[in-house]
C-alpha cells in the first residue's frame, strides 16, 4: 500500500511538474488599469530581475534615494542564464515586478499578456519627450510580437548604447593619419596606410558575436536606413538582399583579403579581440560603448572614438544602438510604483549614473563632465541621436539571426561564402520567422 502511495505521489508530482511547465495564459497583450502618477506613501517592495550590471544596481540605488519608501530588490543572473530563465520566471505565479527586457528571449511574453503594454504610462508621463524616439521605437511591437517598431510599448530604456570605432591614437598617427575619417573612402585610405606600417588595422573577434559588427557598421554606412529598419522590424516584404548590403558584405571579404583583419579572426573571442586592441596589437576596434570604460582604463588618452564614417560627406549619421530596458510584469501588485522607476530613467539623477557606468544617458541633453575617450563617445553619440540615426542591431530581426550572422561573417572572412550566400542565409532566417 505504502509503495503504491509513493508511486502515486511521484506520478502526481510529475503531473504537477508537467502542468507547471506546460503553458500559461495567452489572451493577447495586457494593459495596466488605474494608471496614476500618485505613488503609495506606504512601504512598497518591488523585485527587479536583470542581467546587466553596470548600470542596474546604481540605478536602483539612485531611485531609492529619491523614493525612500520604495525598496527594489534586484535579482541578477548572468546573461546566458538570464535569457534562458527569464521567460519562465515571468510566466510563473510570482514573477518579478520589473524585468530587464531582452527582445529575443522575452518577445513571446507580449502575446502571452505577461508584460504590460506601457502605452497608458507613456501618455500619462509624456515619455515621447523624455526618451530619444529611436530608443523607444525598438521596444514597440505588434500584438503578435512579429513586427516591431510599431504598436504597443513593452519596455523603456534605462541606459543607451551605440556602435562605433575605437582607435589607437599612437598607431594611427604613426601611419600619418591626423584626424578621424570623414567618409568611408577616406577610412579605407587610412586602413591601407595603417597596414603599410605593418599593423593589422582591425581587431576582430569573429569567433563570437563581435564579428558581425564589421558588416553591420558597413551596412549602416552604405545602405538605406529606412529599408534596413523595415527589415529588422519585420515589415512584410522587407529584404536584406539589397545591393548595398551586398556591397557591405563584399567589403568585409575584400578587407579580409587585404589583410585588414587578423588572419586568425575566426578563432578570436570577443574578450580576446578587446584585449588585442587594448594591448596595441591593432589600430581599430568596432564595438559599442559598453567597452568604453574598459578601454579608457587600459589605454587612457591613447584611445579615441568615432562613428563609422558615412559613405558620402554630409550624409546623416547612422549607427546601431540598443538599450538596457525594463518591462513591467502584468502580475505586479504595484504597477504605478514600477512605472515610476521606469520614468526615473530619463531624470538627470539617472543620467549621471548611466554615464558613470559607461552607458549613454537616456536624457541626451544632460550636462556631463566627461574626459578622454568617454567624452568622445558622448559627443559622437549626440550626433547620431541628433540625426535620429540610431538603428537596431541586425540580430534583433529573428531569433536565430545571430547564428546566421556569426557563421556568415566567418564565411566572408575565410572566403568560404560569397556575399550572395551570406545575405541569402540571413533572409532565409527572416522569412522563417516573419512569413
Amino acid at each position, binding site marked *: 500500500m505504502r509503495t503504491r502511495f509513493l*508511486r502515486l505521489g511521484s506520478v502526481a508530482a510529475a503531473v504537477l511538474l508537467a502542468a507547471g511547465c506546460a503553458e500559461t495564459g495567452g489572451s493577447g497583450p495586457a494593459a495596466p488599469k488605474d494608471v496614476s502618477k500618485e505613488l503609495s506613501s506606504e512601504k512598497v517592495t518591488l523585485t527587479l530581475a536583470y542581467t546587466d550590471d553596470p548600470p542596474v544596481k546604481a540605478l536602483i540605488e539612485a531611485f531609492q534615494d529619491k523614493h525612500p519608501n520604495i525598496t527594489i530588490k534586484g535579482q541578477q543572473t548572468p546573461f546566458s542564464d538570464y535569457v534562458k530563465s527569464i521567460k519562465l520566471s515571468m510566466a510563473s505565479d510570482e514573477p518579478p515586478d520589473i524585468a530587464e527586457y531582452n527582445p529575443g528571449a522575452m518577445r513571446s511574453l507580449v502575446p502571452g499578456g505577461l508584460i504590460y503594454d506601457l502605452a497608458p504610462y507613456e501618455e500619462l508621463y509624456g515619455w515621447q519627450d523624455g526618451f530619444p524616439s529611436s530608443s523607444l521605437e525598438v521596444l514597440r511591437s505588434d500584438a503578435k510580437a512579429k513586427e516591431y517598431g510599431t504598436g504597443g510599448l513593452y519596455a523603456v530604456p534605462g541606459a543607451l548604447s551605440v556602435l562605433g570605432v575605437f582607435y589607437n591614437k599612437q598607431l594611427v598617427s604613426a601611419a600619418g593619419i591626423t584626424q578621424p575619417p570623414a567618409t568611408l573612402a577616406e577610412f579605407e585610405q587610412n586602413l591601407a596606410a595603417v597596414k603599410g606600417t605593418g599593423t593589422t588595422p582591425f581587431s576582430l573577434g569573429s569567433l563570437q558575436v563581435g564579428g558581425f559588427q564589421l558588416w553591420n557598421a558597413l551596412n549602416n554606412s552604405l545602405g538605406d536606413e529606412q529599408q534596413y529598419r523595415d527589415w529588422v522590424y519585420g515589415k512584410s516584404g522587407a529584404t536584406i538582399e539589397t545591393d548595398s548590403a551586398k556591397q557591405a558584405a563584399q567589403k568585409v571579404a575584400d578587407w579580409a583579403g587585404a589583410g585588414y583583419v587578423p588572419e586568425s579572426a575566426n578563432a578570436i573571442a570577443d574578450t580576446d579581440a578587446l584585449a588585442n586592441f587594448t594591448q596595441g596589437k591593432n589600430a581599430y576596434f568596432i564595438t559599442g560603448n559598453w567597452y568604453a570604460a574598459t578601454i579608457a582604463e587600459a589605454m587612457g588618452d591613447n584611445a579615441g572614438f568615432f562613428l563609422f564614417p558615412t559613405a558620402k560627406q554630409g550624409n546623416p549619421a547612422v549607427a546601431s544602438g540598443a538599450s538596457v530596458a525594463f518591462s513591467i510584469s502584468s502580475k505586479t501588485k504595484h504597477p504605478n510604483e514600477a512605472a515610476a522607476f521606469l520614468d526615473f530613467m530619463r531624470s538627470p539623477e539617472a543620467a549621471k549614473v548611466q554615464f558613470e557606468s559607461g552607458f549613454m544617458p537616456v536624457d541626451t541633453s544632460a550636462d556631463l563632465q566627461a574626459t578622454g575617450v568617454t567624452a568622445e563617445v558622448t559627443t559622437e553619440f549626440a550626433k547620431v541621436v541628433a540625426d535620429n540615426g540610431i538603428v537596431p542591431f541586425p540580430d534583433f530581426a529573428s531569433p536565430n539571426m545571430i547564428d546566421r550572422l556569426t557563421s556568415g561573417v566567418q564565411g566572408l572572412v575565410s572566403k568560404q561564402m560569397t556575399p550572395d550566400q551570406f545575405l541569402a542565409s540571413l533572409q532565409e532566417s527572416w522569412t522563417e520567422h516573419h512569413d
Partner: protein
Amino acid sequence: MTDVAVRSGRSVRPERTPARRRPKRRVGRRLHGLVYLAPALAVYVLFAIWPAIHTVYLSFLEWDGILPAVPAGFSNYVTVFTDPTLGPALWHAIVLILFFAVIPCAFGLLMTALLQGGVRGMTAYRMIFFLPQVLPLVAVGITWRWMYSDGGLVNRGLELIGLGSVTRAWLGDYDTALVALGLIGTWAMSGLCMVLFLSGVQKVDVALYEAVALDGGGPVRKFFTVTLPALRGEVTIASVITTIAALASFDFVFVTTNGGPVNQTTVPGLLVYRLAFNEADIGTASALAVVLTLVVIVFVTAIRLITRERS
C-alpha cells in the same frame, strides 16, 4: 572450490522450498523491498525517466515556452529531417567518434600493453593520464582555445621543431577546426580508456601468459591471445561511454568554437541548445533530442553486437 559450490547449493535449497509454500510472506517481503527502493526510485523516475518521456511528449508539440502549446503531430520531425544543418552536424559527430572512441581505445590498449608488467611510477602515469577526466571540459575548453590560438602553445611548439609553415589558428581554420576539436576529445578520453584497461588486465591469470611464453610467443602474441580477449568487457564499456560522449558532445564545442567557423563544427547537441534557448522552439529541439537519442542507441547496439562474445 568444489566444496564451496556444493555448500552454497545446499544452503540455497532449504530457503527456496518454504518460500514456495508461503507465498504470502514472499509478497510481503517484496513489498518490503519496494518500500526501501521507493525513495531512490521516486527520485530516479522524477529526474531521469520522466524528463525523457516528457521530451518525447514535447517533441509532438509546437511550443515556445510561454504561449499555449499546440499539437504538432510529426511536423517537428519533418523539420528536423529536412533541415539542411542536421546532416553536417550528425556527420561531424560521427567524425568525432574517431577522435573520442577509436583513437583513445587504441591508445589505451597500447599503453596497457606497455605498462602492463608493472612499471616504476605507475601511479603517477595513471594519475597524469586520468587527469583530463577529472577536469570539466567546459573549463579545459577555454584553455585549449588559447593553446590552439595564433600565438598559442601549439603553434609555438610547431615553430620550435621547424614547422612554422603550417602554423595557423587551428580552431578558426575552415579545414582544421573539426580535427583540432576532435583531438581535445582524444586527450580527454584516452586516460579513461587506459585506466579501465589497466584495471581489467589485473584480473588475468598470470599462468596464461606463462603458457604463451612456453609456446614461444612474444609480447605481441601475449597481447593478442591473452590480454585483448580478456579485456573484451572493458573495451565494450569504454567504446560505449566514449561514443556517447562524441555523439552527445556539446559543452566543449560550445566554449571552443560554438559550431564555427562557418558551421564546420556544429554537433547535434549544439543545435538542440540553439533551437531551445535561442529560437524558443521547444518542440523541434525536443524532436532533435529524440532523434539524437535514437542515433546513440543505434551506435551503442552496434558496438555491443560487434564486441559480443561469439558462443
